[in-house]
């Protein structure tokens, strides 16, 4: 019944009813939101907030500003073309004396040293040798005498660049870039330019593991989807048991299997295939094998779901229309598994990108992925800006891939391709 068909006495009650319904619906929505809210607030505090904080640290740059406030202020108007004026030198001298007294000089020295190797020595030697505030007009001469580095433009541009309050320094460093003395973005010096290599390695290992998972997972998913339910449920245990077994147990198991006196080497030796034990662990091979083992169930399960949804009638129809088995498989079956391949592949790839524990335990120095460096800079060297910048790049890659994954899985739900 439409609203226009209501006439006479009914029309009088219609408006209030509509309004009442709307109000009831609004109350329901508020209640629904109230139920979700505790989790949203909780995640804001335990997840989103901390990650936002980390992202902020990637651009936060207030250490030098806090330790050398007058210098940073004096350099604000400096064009960077020639050496700064006497005023900047005087400000630096007075800042150094104050920072030495308050103990903040080490923090500034550490930050400046990231940008210019050797800056720590410049600053600490100056702090040690500067006895008192120089006479007016002699600051440039005094500082230049203590350390000739103060007569160089690079020293001063470094301070100006690190003056904050925000910086692109760490993000540039995470991409092997830096700013030269004129402020242009250039390639970082070779001894610091390691991160593109690390990102490339992370990408390659993840891609290799994803391909391995697909090659190994496809036949298994096909078998499980084709067998009668009783038998496939039984075989599913072989997929679910490793899935539920602790990551540490599985990693440890691979060390036991692949070490030089391990089961694999012993068996190969016993079979007479090798004389010397092969090096199977603490290298790229070990990382790929262990990661494939850990991530394989994440490939098999989505593939299985998508294959389970393919009606056998399609293959029968193809056969009855005269398609040879291989053609039917390639033209009819395989295209229908593509969403499953995409979902499983993306899931494995996303999970592999952020891997830390497995490469840390079974990889060599040249097999460490990006997460290892993030952890290293956070806990060992406390270069939090760089750790956060590397984290920001990894997070960005993960989010982009997760968005593609979301679209893919959503599309499948619309077409009914994936039931879980």
């Amino acid at each position, binding site marked *: 019944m439409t609203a226009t068909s209501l006439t006479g006495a009914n029309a009088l009650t219609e408006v209030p009813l509509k309004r009442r319904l709307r109000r009831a619906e609004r109350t329901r*929505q508020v*209640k*629904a939101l*109230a*139920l*979700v809210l*505790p*989790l*949203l607030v*909780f*995640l804001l505090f335990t*997840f989103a*907030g*901390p*990650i936002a*904080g*980390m992202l902020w*640290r990637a651009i936060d740059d207030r250490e030098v500003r806090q330790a050398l406030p007058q210098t940073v202020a004096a350099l604000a108007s400096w064009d960077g073309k020639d050496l700064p004026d006497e005023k900047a030198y005087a400000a630096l001298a007075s800042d150094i004396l104050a920072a030495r007294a308050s103990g903040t000089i080490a923090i500034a020295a550490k930050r400046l040293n990231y940008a210019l190797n050797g800056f720590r020595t410049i600053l600490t030697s100056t702090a040690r040798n500067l006895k008192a505030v120089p006479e007016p007009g002699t600051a440039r001469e005094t500082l230049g005498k203590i350390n000739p580095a103060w007569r160089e433009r690079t020293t001063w541009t470094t301070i100006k660049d690190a003056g904050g309050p925000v910086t692109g320094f760490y993000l540039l460093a995470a991409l092997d870039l830096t700013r030269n003395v004129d402020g242009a973005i250039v390639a970082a010096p070779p001894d610091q330019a390691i991160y593109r290599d690390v990102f490339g390695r992370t990408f390659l290992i993840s891609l290799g593991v994803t391909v391995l998972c697909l090659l*190994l*997972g496809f*036949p*298994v998913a096909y078998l499980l989807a*084709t067998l009668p339910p009783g038998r496939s449920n039984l*075989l599913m245990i*072989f997929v*679910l*048991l490793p899935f*539920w*077994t*602790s*990551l*540490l*147990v599985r*990693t*440890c*198991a*691979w*060390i*036991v*299997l692949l070490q030089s006196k391990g*089961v694999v080497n*012993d068996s190969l030796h016993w079979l007479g295939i090798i004389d010397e034990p092969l090096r199977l662990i603490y290298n790229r091979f070990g990382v790929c094998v262990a990661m494939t*083992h850990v991530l*394989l169930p994440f490939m098999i399960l989505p593939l299985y779901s998508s294959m389970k949804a393919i009606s*056998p009638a399609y293959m029968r129809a193809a056969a009855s229309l005269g398609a040879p*088995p291989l053609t039917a498989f390639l033209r009819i079956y395989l295209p229908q598994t593509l969403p499953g391949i995409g979902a499983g592949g993306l899931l494995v790839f*996303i999970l592999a990108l952020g891997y*830390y*524990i497995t490469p840390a335990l079974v990889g060599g120095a040249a097999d460490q992925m990006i997460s290892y460096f*993030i*952890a290293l800079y*956070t*806990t060992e060297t406390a270069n*939090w800006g760089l*750790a956060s910048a590397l*984290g920001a790049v*990894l*997070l960005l890659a*993960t989010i982009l891939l*997760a968005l593609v994954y979301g679209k893919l899985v959503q599309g499948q739900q619309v077409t009914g391709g994936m039931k879980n």
Partner: protein
Amino acid sequence: MSDNASLRTPSQRIAWTATIVISTLVFIFLIAPILAIMPLSVSSGSYLTYPLPGLSLRWYDDFINSPRWMNSLKNSMIIGVASTLLSMVLGTLAALGLAQWKSRFKPLALAFVLSPVVVPGVITAVGLYFFFAPIGLTGSYLGLILAHTALATPFVVITVGATLQSFDTNLARAAASLGASPLQAFRRVILPLILPGVASGALFAFATSFDEVVIVLFMAGPEQRTLPREMFSGIRENISPTITAAAVILTTVSVILLATLEGLRRRNERLKGSSA
């Protein structure tokens, strides 16, 4: 069966045989490492190699009598149970709310709630390390419980949400029309129906916390080390067979969780089957 019967041509039979052979090899690849580590825990020797020189329970004895290992087991239990309970409450409420909520922000809210599963562990750990240190939550049980709850709750939201999809909302309306208060309707009608979802979510949550090691690496003090954290050190420093005893204990917990989940799933299917 029907598919096997339709395999008439030789090439189809070869392809099917190849599928079986490859799958068998993959199953061996998946299971063999876990099986290979088990017997080492009852070895009488101190090396992680075969053949075993003899059988003994000395490594289990070592585990039980080591305050470090026992403390880590206790910590894993405390943190696992506490974060499971917390994530059950938060996740069930959120799933109930999300099922009723109609808004264009809903996909965004859902993506946000599920994102802790996708974001790399190291990123969450580093963020929490910076965030919790100034407020004294690093090196504390509370900090670890909160962090693990954030990681575990998505699984409760997913499992409860899946149960709610097949849930007939008319049942809640019927309860209300029969005079049940919202709380009564929840306790007597909704909760019993979604309980399997809550229970499997809880199992996932516990498994997540019980297996988590990256956040523990960053945030736990020596007092809060969990079993996986202790294993991490053990593997790094020197692999003693005590680790294999710990591995057997961890795997036993996994098997119990998996078996419970499978039991829940079967029971659910049976109930669905009988109602249809």
